[in-house]
């Protein structure tokens, strides 16, 4: 679905990476590896049309991404390495806002189930700023389920998570793959997530 061809990006005339080729089909999980500053986040942002490539192109369903942008956005969830939940509101209110905002059809019991597996159900009425960093991060992943989109673009999803949560993530990824979804994520730590392709930047 997403095809990246000979993508090179330079910022302030400094080359970040050159000639990256990717193809993200359905049921595929791609892991971006590389050290700090190798351009993992930059590549993910380029996939969201936030950064103009200096050469090469990104295609979505055979058309240039730029020409087909809002169609692409209908199919993609992006989670950055920062948390977007509103820290002054409670967990429950955040979930409610997300459900309204993404026009989600997910049922309450489904959300409760996930909260239980993520061990967030006890914090339901607490404000987000009283949660620990790892917990807000887990809360952030709830968006993947609420948005219910085909393509997940995740920036460093595994950092700051304990082993238990990483296992939950791996399970979620596997579920998503079995539903013909595709994932591209960056990470610098080794995990036992079953990926179909690794790209070293």
């Amino acid at each position, binding site marked *: 679905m997403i095809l990246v061809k000979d993508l090179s990006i330079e*910022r*302030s*005339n*400094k080359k970040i990476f050159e000639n990256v080729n990717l193809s993200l089909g359905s049921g595929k999980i791609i892991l971006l590896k590389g050290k700090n500053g190798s351009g993992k986040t930059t590549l993910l942002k380029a996939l969201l049309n936030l950064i103009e490539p200096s050469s090469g192109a990104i295609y979505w369903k055979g058309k240039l991404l730029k020409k087909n942008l809002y169609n692409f956005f209908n199919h993609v969830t992006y989670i950055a390495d920062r948390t977007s939940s509103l820290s002054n509101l409670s967990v429950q209110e955040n979930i409610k806002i997300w459900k309204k905002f993404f026009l989600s059809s997910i049922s309450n019991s489904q959300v409760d189930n996930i909260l239980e597996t993520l061990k967030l159900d006890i914090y339901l009425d607490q404000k987000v700023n009283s949660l620990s960093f790892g917990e807000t991060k887990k809360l952030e992943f709830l968006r993947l389920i609420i948005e219910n989109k085909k393509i997940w673009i995740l920036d460093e999803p595994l950092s700051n998570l304990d082993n238990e949560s990483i296992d939950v993530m791996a399970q979620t990824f596997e579920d998503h793959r079995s539903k013909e979804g595709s994932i591209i994520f960056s990470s610098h730590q080794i995990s036992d997530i079953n990926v179909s392709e690794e790209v070293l930047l």
Partner: protein
Amino acid sequence: MIFLVNPSKFNKVADYVFLPVLILSIILFSIGLIFAFYLSPDDYQQGSTVRIMYVHVPSAWLALLTYVIMSLYSIAGLAFRIPFGFIINTAVAPIGAVFTLICIISGSLWGKPMWGTWWVWDARLTSVAILFIIYVIIIFINLSFENRIVREKVVAIFILVGSVNLPIVKFSVDWWNTLHQPATISKLSKPSIDPSMMTPLIIMTFAFIMMGIAIAILRIKTEIISRKSYLS
């Protein structure tokens, strides 16, 4: 005319042009000042105070002209992705600010004997004061952003937003009652100024333009160099 949008071509042309322009500006200034102070006649109303005009009017024109140039280069930079436009914007803004300041100060000196006041808040004077502050804000934006790309484009956007002030400056005297008199020289009608006073005015205008170009060349070249060192 490609040198107007291409840094390396500009550098080449500038190297040829700089010295002649500088010399020309010095010559024009000396001729113009001699004309302005000795050879031009007194005005029938204002006496010799009218000589302030030979500084005031050229600087006012150039303050506006500089802003127009910056607006055009901002459009070039934003819409046609010509990075040289941003270089020009950064380099030229302080020159425009200085011209505006000269215009305001000389106008103030002229206003005291003629109108009987240093400053009034009529539409022309207020809009020129705002023009000056807009120039100052442009310089400040240039100073306070760390990210170069963001800074350049924000400056360009601000210049375009601020250009609503230009027609107000130019036409305020025609549209509204102001203490400031309407334009003496306009395209549509015969100038209502005597040739003996028109000559020094034109000489001084060209002297100002040449001086402006000379300083602009220096500033643009330093700007290009500073970016080159940024690249490597």
